[in-house]
């Protein structure tokens, strides 16, 4: 393929394989740079919005800070707590946060009474682990299911799969999570119902691995439908293209046809959508963390939002936004790599 393109470069055509591998690579770099440059103002705007929204939200910061003692605090104590939390304008709080954040000072969390940097350092890695494994599993399952369905388009299996996936796509992720827990853990007792390890057990690969199964499955199952359905559609289209037919006629084995001709083509539209869906994956895993007591950033985010904990809320939101942006960029870079027709400069 490469030789064909190199031999006949259509002059001036932006959307076909006119570029050498080198110039594609630098275009991909430009894409990455452009995205990262965009990320900065986006983060500023998002953090601003977080502070503004938290300030107008009806939750009572002092009541949240007092927790269960709220009902018994009395006037003097409540005024003391209100004095601690201060009634500064949200813009001032935001400015302090923005000025401190680049230097690594993410502020002090009032909801967990700890340095935000330490909270994030302890929690973000667990969120990333859960999301990456969940998405990877969803992708693998999606490919398998899509291929099975596409190869036997009128088979019973294909219909059941399609119907089941559509149904599954309508189920919110927390419901997927609670159902998994009810069946595999509470019902059958095969897997632990939550937590990072058994009580008191050291954080080892075996321990965490066993406790990861259900949360990862929950993330994977809630992401599987769109991956599988998009792939299925694209695979079905690819199976009917002339190039696929030509490959078959040349006697290329079916497995090779699938691997070399069908899947790469089918992956293109799916990857394009993946970038757009990532924020939803992040939001979904927040709920999964809540259900399974997974010590990720999502749980901290929910806590912070309820307590008007500006610093932690902003840090968590910006970081999860960053994860979504980065994921989107990776999806696009993969697209550039797989599909020679993709123009990095147009992404």
């Amino acid at each position, binding site marked *: 393929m490469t030789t064909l393109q190199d031999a006949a470069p259509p002059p001036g055509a932006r959307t076909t394989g006119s570029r050498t591998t080198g110039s594609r690579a630098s275009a991909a770099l430009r894409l990455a740079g452009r995205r990262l440059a965009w990320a900065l103002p986006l983060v500023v705007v998002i953090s601003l919005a977080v502070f503004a929204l938290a300030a107008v939200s009806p939750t009572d910061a002092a009541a949240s800070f007092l927790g269960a003692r709220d009902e018994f605090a009395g006037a003097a104590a409540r005024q003391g707590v209100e004095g601690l939390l201060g009634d500064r304008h949200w813009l001032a709080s935001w400015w302090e946060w923005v000025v401190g954040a680049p230097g690594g000072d993410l502020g002090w969390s009032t909801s967990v009474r700890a340095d935000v940097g330490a909270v994030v350092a302890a929690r973000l890695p667990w969120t990333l682990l859960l999301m990456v494994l969940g998405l990877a599993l969803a992708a693998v399952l999606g490919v398998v299911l899509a291929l099975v369905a596409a190869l036997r388009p009128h088979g019973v299996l294909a219909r059941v799969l399609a119907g089941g996936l559509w149904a599954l796509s309508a189920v919110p992720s927390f419901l997927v999570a609670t159902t998994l827990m009810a069946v595999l853990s509470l019902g059958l007792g095969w897997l632990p119902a*939550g937590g990072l*390890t058994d009580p008191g057990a050291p954080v080892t690969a075996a321990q965490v691995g066993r406790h990861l199964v259900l949360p990862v499955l929950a993330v994977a199952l809630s992401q599987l439908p769109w991956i599988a359905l998009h792939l299925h559609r694209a695979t079905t289209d690819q199976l009917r293209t002339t190039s696929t037919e030509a490959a078959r006629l040349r006697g290329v084995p079916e497995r090779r046809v699938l691997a070399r001709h069908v899947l790469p083509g089918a992956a293109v539209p799916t990857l394009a959508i993946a970038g757009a869906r990532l924020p939803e994956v992040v939001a979904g895993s927040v709920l999964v963390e809540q259900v399974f007591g997974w010590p990720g950033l999502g749980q901290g985010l929910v806590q912070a939002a309820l307590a008007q904990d500006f610093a932690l809320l902003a840090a968590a939101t910006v970081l999860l936004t960053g994860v979504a942006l980065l994921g989107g960029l990776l999806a696009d870079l993969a697209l550039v790599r797989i599909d020679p027709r993709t123009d990095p400069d147009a992404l």
Partner: protein
Amino acid sequence: MPHRPAPFRVTTHGGPSAPRLARAGAVPAAVVLGLVLAGCSGGSPAPASAPASSTLALAESAEYTTLNPLEQPLGITGKMYDGLVRVGADGVLEPGLASAMPTPDEDLTTWTVTLREDVTFSDGTAFDAQDVVAAYTAVRDPAYGSPLATDYEMVESVTAPDPTTVVFELSYPYAGLPARLTLGVPAAEALGASVADSALASEPVGTGPYEVAEWRRGDSLTLAARDDWWGGTAQVTTIHLVFVPDETARAQRVRSGEVDGAQLSPLTAASLDGADGIEVVTNPSADFRAISLPSTLPFFADARVRVALNLATDRDAMVEGILQGDGVAVSTPFTPAQGDAWSPDAAFEHDPDGAAALLDAAGWTAGPGGVRAKDGVPLAFDLMYFADDTLRRDVAQAFASDMAQVGVEVRLEGVDRPQAVAGMRDKAFVLGGGDMPYDPDPQVYRVLHSAFAPYDEDDAYSNPSMYADPQVDALLDTARREPDAAARAATYRELQARLIADPPMVTVFALEHTYVARGLDAWDGVVPVVEPHEHGVAWGPWWNVQEWTAR
């Protein structure tokens, strides 16, 4: 309750090697590597050379926001801290860091406490009177922001004439001080400037039986017994507290043997009773629920209407239906936990016919739609409950249904905290109480005294009925100034009779807190206690775990 005993899971343990929170960041990367390289074949290392030790694993319903005893009194901080006075079996106060119970002068305004001398903090430093002075100065300082500040407003000064003596000077005679001296005392240097930024929130420095070995944020807290606690080293040497918000998951983790106990609702707890050596344990509390009757509403000005609503309430049905029997019907904020000060006779019978007759006599007669009215004003009001609290919701619904029987319309409204505060002036509210059950004064004073009647948005939960009765005020003030225990109890019993004649609200029941536990048979020293409103697995059968001895 037949069950077979199951011993506590006894593990060999290399002793607390105190890895605190911070290092968690590097762990996931190592775990990923481990998963990739070793698959899932890795086993947990079990150092076998250390002496055997007893480990207890308990499931807690929520992660602790703070371990600062000036912010979170009793409960979990009681494992890491001691107070001058401590709560003993059956909720009886006994000396803790004090060598004997505090002694008042004749008019109850000067209290002297002599301290134990053999006490050290978990950081190795010695405990003395200056630490007590610092703690009680901070807890009263508005700038420190302790939620307990209001509870110490009677304290005028705290001084230490010598290293083993502390003197509390009060601004008025106050008999209930010992209950307030249960405050955990941290090392003075560790207090910090305020509860918001004090390191004590996550790194306790106390004199108590346990210290924090590891806090995995969002996951679990591990406590290790101190070998230099003044009370002797606890035989239960390690306590793992795992945070499991979902009740079904908590129940399952007890059933599977993963944890040795948890706090559950009465219904869920009952479903586990007897399974695999699990037993249900209940502790009494003074944790009452009541429906406020705001005096701003025209019909509540008449005491007959308030009495009628009390008569129409079927408390026993609520205890059975809502609490599965794990509670006690009460008609005033006093509960059996107040001991001699409780008057069992001061109670309303369930008498809907009597209620109807009383309402008729007061002029509230049946109007259109079955709702009583007088001069065109219907006997109808709003009842707020915390929307996230299913127990209060159930109480509100049961109450509304009882009221409908006698022609009183109660409109239910699930609210959040700001809405509750804003609505308190002219809406009824399902109130919770009993945060300090070890003396009658903190149990009832702020709920009943007219000093708290004017609506204040900073203090909306105190006296939410805005109730004012000179006789009740006088009895409350007499009782808190009475040095003689028997005379004091008699005054409180007289007060309860008055509360039946002129009820400030509809108090319905006091809860018993329910837990499931396994392996209790292996231990001596498991005894009941009276629990405060806020509770969890730091209470239950495990409240005095540091004193258990193996059978």
